[in-house]
């Protein structure tokens, strides 16, 4: 098979997610409603508490990161969730594909949606709260977004693996992962305020490092971007390997059939 055919295998899930999303009114909520609510509520909170300039950017960066993380992560998870909800999972796994085909296309679409949300939130926060996301140039923004999207892809992969391992109800448990990220990876406060055990956990999450890096543009401080980048790549590769193994396992246990009933 030539490269165009191979490319289309990667793009198939982006195509499916794109059409499903554009026909689904709730995706508009995911894109505009919830992101706006989380941004506005945090922004208004900073006004009420009379938070000074650099701390406002600290909090808004956190709110924006969490929001686009959630948008992009659900897109990756959708690749199996849509199949599970429509009971079409057999048709996907009878095709000659691997986990990375599915994840790539879905992540690509997640990046697209996440970027749209980021753009909207950045503009709104600039006009309402005077936060200039481009203060350090475009490169830090792109690196920061890459870190958020990589973390989102990892979470999405974990959701997919749990579906294939534990079945229908697993998605609920997996959503709590982004709650965990909110708690420990320094979204609204530096990880130093966490108890030691949670700090260790925070240091295992790539997003923590990317947040520190991007914030150092607004509030100079130390960051370890290289560790974050290494962790992100490590988790992505590990996640894809485990996803493929989860598919093989699902073929042994027969859960692949039960998910289509």
């Amino acid at each position: 098979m030539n490269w165009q055919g191979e490319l289309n295998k990667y793009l198939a899930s982006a195509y499916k997610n794109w059409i499903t999303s554009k026909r689904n009114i709730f995706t508009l909520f995911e894109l505009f409603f919830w992101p706006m609510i989380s941004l506005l509520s945090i922004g208004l909170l900073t006004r009420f508490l009379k938070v000074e300039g650099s701390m406002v950017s600290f909090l808004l960066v956190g709110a924006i990161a969490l929001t686009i993380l959630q948008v992009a992560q659900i897109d990756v998870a959708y690749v199996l969730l849509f199949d599970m909800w429509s009971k079409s999972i057999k048709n996907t796994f009878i095709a000659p594909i691997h986990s990375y085909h599915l994840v790539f296309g879905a992540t690509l679409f997640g990046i697209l949606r996440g970027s749209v949300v980021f753009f909207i939130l950045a503009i709104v926060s600039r006009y309402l709260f005077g936060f200039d996301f481009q203060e350090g140039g475009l490169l830090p923004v792109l690196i920061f977004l890459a870190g958020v999207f990589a973390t989102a892809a990892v979470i999405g992969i974990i959701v997919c693996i749990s579906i294939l391992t534990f079945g229908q109800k697993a998605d609920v448990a997996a959503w709590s992962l982004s709650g965990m990220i909110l708690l420990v990876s320094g979204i609204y406060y530096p990880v130093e305020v966490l108890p030691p055990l949670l700090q260790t956990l925070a240091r295992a999450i790539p997003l923590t490092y990317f947040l520190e890096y991007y914030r150092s543009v607004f509030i100079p401080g130390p960051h370890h971007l290289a560790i974050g980048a290494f962790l992100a790549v490590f988790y992505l590769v590990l996640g894809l390997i485990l996803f493929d193994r989860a598919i093989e396992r699902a073929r042994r246990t027969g859960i692949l059939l039960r998910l289509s009933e």
Partner: protein
Amino acid sequence: MTKKPVEAKGICKRYKSFLESSTTVLQNISLDIEEGEIFGLLGPNGSGKTTLISIFSTLIYPEQGSLFILGMDARRDNGEIRKVINISTAKPNFPWSLTVQENLRHYGMLYGLYGSALSRTVGDQIDAFELGDFRDTKFENLSTGLKQRLSLAKAMLNHPRLLFLDEPTTGLDPDISIKTRMLIKRIHQEQNISVVLSTHYMPEAEMLCDRIAFLRKGQIVALDTPRNLKKHLGLGEKVVVSYEGPADIRALESMPGVLGVKAEKGRLEIMIDRNEDSLDRIIKLFCNARILDITIKEPDLEDVFLELAR
């Protein structure tokens, strides 16, 4: 190297679920399917047809046994196998909000089709399965028969050499079922492919299949041509006649198309093969008698299975 579509030896499958004891669903299944044949898996609900088709199509893996699909090892070469097979599942389901055309495009992409070849293949399948009027209808708004047709169209996207059809007519209206069977026959002839088909409906297996394996509780209890199965297992239709007066039972027994006769006083149970115009001749035998009642019963697989189980 042999190129038989399916070569299975000693296939066993158990479903293990968390905290529950495991259930054995297939036991020691061995069978070969020849190139170009339509092979039927016949059995009642729960007999393991879907499980066996899923194993043959590498959707799931067996616990034990060796399995070669088109000469390739089902476990080691499953990636290669998936390129040249396809399946239409029982009660087919596709992403709901995608239209017929979008669904076919999506699955075409998963098979590595692109550009004009993708558009052409999708268009060809839409034409072949007469889906043109529903091209832009979302899957959720299709009738059961159309869903089935879309599923068949999807199964032909990669021009498979081996096609699996799991209960292709279950749940369809009788007229649509007949149409679907014709369609399956046509695909088989035009594309010159091997087909494995499951059904719990004997007449369907008879109409479509060159050979039939009879599944019961996860075991093959018989494997033969439809004709021989009918003869040996009494799978023909049963005509029950109640009558007063004379009837030549001897003549009846030697009549072509009559597979067996059970006689009681004033009541005959005649096992027949409908294909051989036998009904007409049977009725004519009773011209000197007074017929009180005639019923024709389709073969009851459960009965046959009970018979076989003894």
